């Protein structure tokens, strides 16, 4: 059985897919799922689970697929992972569960992510909603932010019987799953359906509420009767390059670019009222998943030419390999080992070119990657009319600014005392990107899970 090749994930044709925002990876059908599930050796000591930040019982759920018992498979997944249809799509499995799969030693690992997606989607289509928790506890918990960390923490606490309210600044829940990750990679309907599941557990979501402005963390604790607060506000503050010309028209942060398209649906303008100007020639700066998302979005918004400007080489790119491949298939022109030094504008202050310098790789830096150094006198200019800066995000400052005794790092990340997510402020917990800096959906979910445990321990010890 294990000698078989991995079942390929069917994809939309690159030439077709850049014309629209439909999902690129089409998912397994039942036959493919079954064939792939049968590749699993169902190891006694499953190494794959070591790579899962939320401890999904991987061989178990896969075994249920081979039995055709998808309901049971879904239940096993859901015990540990509240958002399988999402994780099946966006988790970097190649660096987690699939990396540890025994089959990976000699060939290709079981496509755990694709199977997870299959089961997650099956449940969204056919699954029954869960029963509400038997016994409600009196205590209330406030969760700040409805991204992956917040949703996970909320769902787990609701299952334990706590009354949970999520406070979300935007008009739709989901955080980065809604504003950041594009429709063609993670359909928004899937996100909202998964959130419906979390709500069905009894979680309330209060939209349009900016904690730090509309209400403070202290008020949630002292006036609104929450026994604990979990801060999961993500990494929402865009970094800029700090080079001349960055405020020219046509220069966006990836956050703005993607939010206009994903959350505000600028790709359906003018039916949806939010516009986004995308010219013919776009440069995206950065080498992470957000940069790939921006480049691929620019193609779909009509750009004929999209450059991806990255200061190191492809090997150092933090983006998932599969995202890099998709971008290449879609005609994104990678300008590796180049770095912007200035952005030039027209007389009317529209961007017209980006001046780049060639880079060469030197000795490794703290991150273990080779440190890029500019090659003197190698400057050249690319003619562009749109530029997207995707070089990372920091934590949003609104909560630290409005919560006096909350310890933050120099970069503004909330400091937690230990891996339980406890901050040094009583009854306040934090997790996800706001603690770690920009990371993955599943790591944020792991932190949310951990925090739910800690909050339960904290509240139990108080009563």
């Amino acid at each position, binding site marked *: 059985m294990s000698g078989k090749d991995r079942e390929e994930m069917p994809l939309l044709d690159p030439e077709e897919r850049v014309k629209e925002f439909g999902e690129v990876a089409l998912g397994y059908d039942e036959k493919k799922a079954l064939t792939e599930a049968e590749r699993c050796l169902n190891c006694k000591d499953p190494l794959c689970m070591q790579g899962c930040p939320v401890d999904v019982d991987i061989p178990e759920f896969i075994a249920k697929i081979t039995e055709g018992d998808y309901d049971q498979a879904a239940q096993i997944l859901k015990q540990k992972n509240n958002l399988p249809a999402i994780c099946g799509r966006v988790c970097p499995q190649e660096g987690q569960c699939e990396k540890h799969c025994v089959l990976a030693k000699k060939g290709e690992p079981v496509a755990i992510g694709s199977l997870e997606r299959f089961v997650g989607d099956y449940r969204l289509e056919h699954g029954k909603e869960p029963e509400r928790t038997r016994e409600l506890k009196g205590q209330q918990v406030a969760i700040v932010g409805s991204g992956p960390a917040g949703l996970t923490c909320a769902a787990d606490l609701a299952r334990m019987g706590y009354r949970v309210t999520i406070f979300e600044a935007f008009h739709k829940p989901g955080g980065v799953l809604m504003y950041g990750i594009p429709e063609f990679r993670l359909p928004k309907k899937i996100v909202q359906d998964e959130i419906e599941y979390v709500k069905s557990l009894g979680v309330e979501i209060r939209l349009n509420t*900016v904690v730090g402005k*509309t209400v403070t963390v202290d008020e949630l604790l002292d006036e609104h009767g929450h026994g604990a607060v979990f801060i999961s506000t993500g990494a929402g503050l*865009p970094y800029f390059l700090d080079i001349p010309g960055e*405020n020219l028209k046509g220069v966006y942060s990836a956050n703005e670019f993607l939010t206009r398209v994903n959350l505000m649906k600028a790709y359906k303008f003018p039916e949806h009222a939010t516009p986004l100007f995308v010219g013919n020639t776009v440069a995206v700066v950065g080498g992470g998943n957000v940069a790939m998302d921006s480049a691929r979005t620019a193609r779909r918004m009509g750009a004929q030419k999209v450059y991806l400007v990255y200061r190191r080489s492809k090997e150092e790119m933090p983006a998932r390999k599969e995202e890099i491949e998709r971008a290449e298939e879609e005609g994104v022109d990678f300008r590796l080992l180049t770095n912007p030094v200035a952005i030039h504008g027209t007389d009317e202050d529209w961007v017209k070119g980006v001046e780049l310098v060639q880079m060469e790789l030197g000795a490794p830096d703290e991150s273990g990657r080779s440190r890029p150094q500019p090659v003197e006198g190698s400057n050249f200019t690319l003619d562009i009319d749109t530029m997207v800066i995707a070089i990372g995000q920091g934590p949003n400052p609104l909560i630290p600014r409005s919560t006096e005794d909350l310890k933050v790092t120099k970069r503004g990340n909330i400091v937690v005392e230990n891996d339980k997510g406890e901050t040094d402020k009583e009854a306040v917990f934090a997790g996800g990107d706001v603690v770690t800096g920009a990371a993955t959906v599943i790591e944020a979910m792991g932190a949310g899970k951990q925090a739910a445990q800690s909050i339960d321990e904290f509240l139990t010890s108080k009563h």
Partner: protein
Amino acid sequence: MIGEETNNVKPDLGYKIVRKEELAPNIKLFEIKAPWVAKKAAPGQFIILRVNETGERVPLTIANFNRDAGTVTIIAQEVGYTTKQLGQLREGDAVLDFVGPLGQPSELPESGTVVCIGGGIGIAPIYPQVKALSEQGINVITIVGSRSAEQLILTKDLEELSSKFYVATDDGSQGYKGFVTDILQELLNSGTNVDRVIAIGPIVMMKAVTAITQPRNIPTTVSLNSLMVDGTGMCGACRVTIGGENKFACIDGPEFDAFQVDFDEQLQRQDFYRDPEMKAMAQSHCHIGDTSERGDPRVR
């Protein structure tokens, strides 16, 4: 107008318009029920609203608030798509989303003489500042200006709260014929002692006020109504150069020390979505009203 992806995760039935008034042609006041926002609102702050499911998020400065009634008042000039959409709503209707208060509250002086200048729709956000200052017993001189008499708003209320009150119109149809800056210049020339100037209005106006106050070293505050999407520091669309440093109007402002503001950059940036390509796009596809100024940040 409800889009196909209407979703059941909605705020509590939207935010109801409890009072609507037409203050001037195309300038409308909306008192909106939003108790959480009202509880925290302070002069200088703004809200972001979205009329319906397919709507754009638009920032509007808070013109008044009533904590007891749980309401927040905004005043909008119908210059773009969303403000026109808003203008069609009636008392009893609701806007789908209403979030705030956003931005830093004004740092109002505690003594001295303050000149408050409101230009055009900028008269609306100057009102809560004049009110707060006057309630603290500060001597407030107010200057308001607009193209012509019919666009002037809140004059009666402002006059009552101010020790001196001046009006300037471009066409002379009310008050002085000329600009608010002419009156400011005149006041200063005649020896009026001014400790602080607060100016809110079109960027050219705020720039012109600063050109007068800076040489005399009179501390001046302006409020920037930059383009925004989220209003919480996330998108960076509202970035503005302040003293050579990049700041976000939504979380660091919207009010800034006028002497530090790069007004020319702001002038350019506010045209982002008014440029020809965008216009063409809007006009060729759009079926609702005049969208030539869609995306105009100067909605307040």
